[in-house]
């Protein structure tokens, strides 16, 4: 995919940045087209008598409850988007966010169940730390295999999702089987009430502290990638591994570390969902969060601020999706819609670059400076 590798770290970053800025408006237009397509599809699928726009308005921005729902859906999506975006910075795909999220929540639950009498002030940070470690641990093998053996992280991270689903099933049907919910073992008993994360009310809508934590993570990552050596190394490695090596960076370690950080953020998403809304350990802690998170990161084109925006946008889509479930669409419809968005966005990124619109573009001579609009 890369044709002209930039030879210096600064050039590599500059090229990536320019390409990003040029395509911003195009990308926004593509997202709009994708949303319209989705809307057109939805309007053909509804049971008669449902007012699509009314439902969309009421379930999202139109009511305090809608806003509350929207923000609570956005929290894990923003974190999942961050996780994917961090891996992207190093040129990697973490599609195992779902699994890391579940294992992160599992670790947090384990801490909560084994130390239930601890006061919340101690237990909550412990659980958060456990979830970071859990998600990181779940990403360890793919990270090692990718960085040191070049095993495709796409396949390994995804495979571990299925392992994590089974792992969750094992714990909620085995050691943590709940006796409260008769024979339907879909979740464990609740975690101690002292660990429920508080929320504050804005105009009638309860906004969880977890949302603030997610925004904090976005800000922290923005700082890391803008101002730290770690961030710089990772970014250069992702933009052009050759440039990274030339600058003397240990690029394997950079990829390894980015993958671990990515897993840790995904794990954090798990414990936050559990502690703020779900209040027990269950497979439903993820509602395709990892998959939609991939789209969040792709639409944001690797920008951390962008993740915040696209996370909020796709949370709207999820809120609408679940509101329309009563009106005749399935839970899969959200993935269908984000898939359409993704196709539109990737066409928008490709067509003006080297797609049919630019078929006859002249090829620069091999020793020329790479032109700014050329992708790395």
């Amino acid at each position, binding site marked *: 995919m890369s044709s002209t590798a930039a030879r210096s770290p600064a050039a590599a970053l500059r090229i990536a940045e320019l390409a990003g800025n040029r395509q911003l408006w195009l990308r926004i237009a593509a997202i709009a087209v994708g949303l319209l397509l989705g809307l057109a599809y939805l309007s053909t699928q509804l049971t008669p008598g449902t007012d699509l726009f009314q439902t969309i308005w009421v379930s999202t921005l139109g009511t305090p409850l809608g806003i509350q729902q929207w923000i609570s859906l956005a929290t894990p999506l923003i974190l999942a988007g961050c996780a994917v975006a961090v891996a992207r910075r190093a040129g990697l795909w973490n599609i195992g966010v779902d699994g890391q999220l579940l294992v992160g929540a599992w670790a947090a639950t384990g801490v909560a169940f084994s130390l239930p009498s601890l006061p919340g002030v101690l237990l909550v940070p412990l659980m958060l730390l456990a979830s970071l470690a859990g998600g990181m641990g779940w990403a360890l093998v793919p990270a090692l295999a990718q960085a040191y053996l070049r095993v495709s992280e796409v396949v390994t991270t995804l495979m571990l999702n299925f392992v994590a689903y*089974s792992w969750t099933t094992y714990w909620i049907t085995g050691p943590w089987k709940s006796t409260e919910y008769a024979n339907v073992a879909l979740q464990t008993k609740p975690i101690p009430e002292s660990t429920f994360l508080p929320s504050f009310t804005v105009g009638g809508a309860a906004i969880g502290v977890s949302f603030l934590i997610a925004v904090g993570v976005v800000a922290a990552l923005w700082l890391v990638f803008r101002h730290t050596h770690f961030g710089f190394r990772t970014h250069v490695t992702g933009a052009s591994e050759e440039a990274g090596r030339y600058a003397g960076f240990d690029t394997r370690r950079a990829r390894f570390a980015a993958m671990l950080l990515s897993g840790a953020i995904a794990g954090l998403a798990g414990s936050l969902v559990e502690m703020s809304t779900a209040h027990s350990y269950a497979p439903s802690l993820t509602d395709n969060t990892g998959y939609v998170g991939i789209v969040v990161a792709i639409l944001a084109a690797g920008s951390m601020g962008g993740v915040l925006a696209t996370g909020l946008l796709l949370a709207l889509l999820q809120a609408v999706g679940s509101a329309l479930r009563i009106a005749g669409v399935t839970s899969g419809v959200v993935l*269908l819609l984000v*898939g359409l968005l*993704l*196709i539109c966005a990737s066409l928008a990124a490709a067509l003006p670059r080297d797609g049919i619109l630019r078929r006859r573009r002249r090829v620069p001579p091999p020793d020329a400076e790479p032109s700014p609009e050329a992708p790395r």
Partner: protein
Amino acid sequence: MSFDVFEGMLASAMLAGIPLAYAALGELLSERVGVINIGIEGVMLVGAAVGFVIAVDSGSTVTGFVASAAAGGLFAGLFVALPIVLARASQIVIGFAAWFIGIGLSAELGASYTSSALPQRMAEIQVPLLRDLPLVGKAFFEQPWPVYLGVAVVLAVAFLLNRTRHGMNLRAIGEDPGSAHAAGVPVVRWQLLYVTVGGALMGLGGGMLSLVTIRHWQDQMVAGGGWIALALVIFVAWRPVSLLWGAYFFGILLVLGDVGQSQGWGIPSPILDMAPYLLTIAVLIARATRTRRFGGPPTAPAALGSVFVRGQR
């Protein structure tokens, strides 16, 4: 484990493994013309859902099976081949998109069919005498015909790729599209064609799952099979014939959970269910380690994932 159980496991492993062989073969064809289609899972789901729906509605399971191929081909052609080959969109991103759209579309299509039953079972081919062999008789000589069709298609593609001029030209596209183009191979047309044909094979894999192996429709029933197929192609180093035993091997792992549960091995079935996924990872790591240490067998097509623009390079 008793003899009968082992015999039964070998037989059902075939039904679980052959869909992977179909799908992996489709991916292999795609990759041989330089296009990596990571949306296999989505294409399989569409094939599975459409096949099942058509089978129930038309009253013929065979018609459903044919429809699953058509659906897979159409889906991969529209959502993978066109954006990747003509618009040169990112192969990975388009693959994700096809995967998501496949999950969503199949869920929407199959939603009202979750409790439907198939009109009839696929006919079995029974090889006289051989099917009475102990242990392997049932597994290899008394199976529904899509199993044998799968084996035949794999062998046919192997012949096409390795023994014909057409196949050599086809592989040339994946190795060096510029040279193939210079030699007069219609690169873009063949890429479109073989990604679509590959999609039809993935569709058949999905169709076999819903029509022969599991015999009902449920959401996301492929359960990672498409991704295992993707790994399988790497595992067999892009050689079609090896797909057969590779797929059978994964078939055994896929049925392990059920066998363990029915036999009361004492290992909880969710833990056994992890086996195929963990093994996929182990296999990829083992292959990479070996390649690193000894240099490997012929590996990926050299131009896999690259963009071919006529007149450039």
